[in-house]
């Protein structure tokens, strides 16, 4: 039986670019203020089934991040409809939703509360998260003192351990060291296969994507140019890239 968790139906997203912030403020009140339109996502449609693991390929500015943001519910489409069923856990950026003044441990609770978990539910996950992040004593230091690798580790540890139904990983894995990367990949593999989590993965390293994705979508200039088996998608992406060179 088909169990669609994410569906994009002719989705387009246009950003409004004003020449200055003052114009943007005036644009709120006056419709006539001119602005440029930038189409970040152009008429994209696809469906993703439960348990799928999909890689998104594309150069910078191809619209991958915008697609992910729309799935997460952070950004909204200008046209078309998006349906998402399930709890989305997104690692959009390294510092995804951290409060810099709080310690790592406090951030675990903060993030849990924001996602609607109860104290005892978070407590049950706390040790796993701390252990996974390998932060040791640093877990009780403010996040602003963390290095980018530490933030990425904590972010990944939280997102992957709060039992997501849809996991979105946006290049976060490229930050940690090799050992941690392997650990993350193992963990991702585990959640995909054990818990039937739907994975959306964005990376420039096609080899990593091929490891645990079965399907690949290639984007270019906001449009979907390829959608199919991951190896073929990776080939397509590489070819597109070399021609460009």
């Amino acid at each position, binding site marked *: 039986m088909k169990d669609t968790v994410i569906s994009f139906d002719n989705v387009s997203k246009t950003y409004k670019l004003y020449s200055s912030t003052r114009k943007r*403020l005036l644009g*709120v009140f006056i419709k006539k203020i001119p602005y440029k339109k930038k189409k970040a996502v152009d008429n994209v449609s696809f469906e993703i089934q439960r348990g799928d693991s999909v890689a998104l390929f594309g150069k910078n500015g191809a619209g991958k991040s915008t697609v992910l943001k729309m799935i997460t519910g*952070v950004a909204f489409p200008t046209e078309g409809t998006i349906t998402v069923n399930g709890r*989305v856990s997104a690692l959009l950026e390294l510092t*995804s939703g951290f409060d810099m003044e709080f310690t790592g441990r406090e951030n675990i609770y903060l993030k849990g509360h924001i996602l609607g978990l109860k104290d005892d539910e978070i407590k049950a996950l706390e040790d796993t998260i701390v252990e996974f992040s390998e932060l040791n004593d640093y877990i009780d230091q403010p996040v602003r003192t963390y290095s980018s690798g530490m933030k990425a580790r904590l972010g990944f540890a939280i997102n992957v351990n709060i039992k997501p139904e849809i996991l979105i990983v946006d290049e976060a894995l490229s930050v940690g060291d090799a050992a941690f990367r392997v650990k993350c990949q193992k963990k991702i593999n585990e959640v995909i296969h054990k818990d039937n989590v739907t994975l959306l993965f964005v990376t420039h390293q096609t080899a990593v994507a091929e490891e645990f994705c079965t399907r690949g979508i290639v984007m270019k200039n906001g449009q979907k140019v390829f959608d199919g088996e991951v190896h073929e998608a990776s080939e397509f992406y590489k070819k597109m890239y070399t021609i460009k060179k």
Partner: protein
Amino acid sequence: MNKIKDFFMSYINILILDIKEHLENVPQIFKLSIADLKKTYTGAALGWAWAVIKPVVTIFVYWFAIAIGLRQGGDIEGVPYILWLICGIISWFYMGDSITGGTDCIRRYSYLITKMKYPVTTIPTHNNLSRFFVHIIITVIVVLIFWIGGYPPTIYLLQLPVYMILMFLFFNAWSLFAGLVSAMSKDFSNLVKSFNVSVFWLSGVLWNIENVKDNEIVYSILMLNPVTFICYGYRNCFVNHVWFFEQPKRLLYFLGWYALLVFLSLWAYKKLRKEIPDVLA
């Protein structure tokens, strides 16, 4: 006709969404407001003491300037100026901080908007709530000060929660509107900051508006200021001993302002909700 109906329905729907988001996220709102408090006060060595030191210093400075400097420190409504000042100015501490703090609330919590899906209408609420907790503590202290100063609580103090809740709701609507607009551009937040001072001096926080009662036009314009309504409401409880329903005209003016702000906040939400993540990102 249908157009008017659609127009109204779109606003009613946002209002329902606003209320629904609040009801569904009560634990998150409280958790985040306590987190906000912790963040404000745990960074400094004196910590929580600042919540009291800051208002005490401010009150002293105003009292010194007005009573000693300008020699206007005589009794007002039968109580010493300092007490008259204190019981009104504590409400301004909340209101003034809410006018500017509310304007920055969306920017301050931009990560709740750009990094995850979070009910946006509740951001001003938890942001204001953390300050409201402090306000409650200060209000209790002021009740004690009055008591010690020989003015024990009267039955009129029972209406204080009415004014407190009106104040909270009013500035919550303001914060949603101002927060959303200033997220689009910092100009708005600068505009608010420059107006904040005028709102303060043109309210009856420091000086008694009854002094200008002879000039009816000026008097009624000054009385339109919602800050004055709340501030004098506090004084109704502590000093004047008047019930809020005994001044129906003032209450109606205030509720009119409130209705306007709610409308503006819904308008801002409707217009900007989808654009704001793009701007803040």
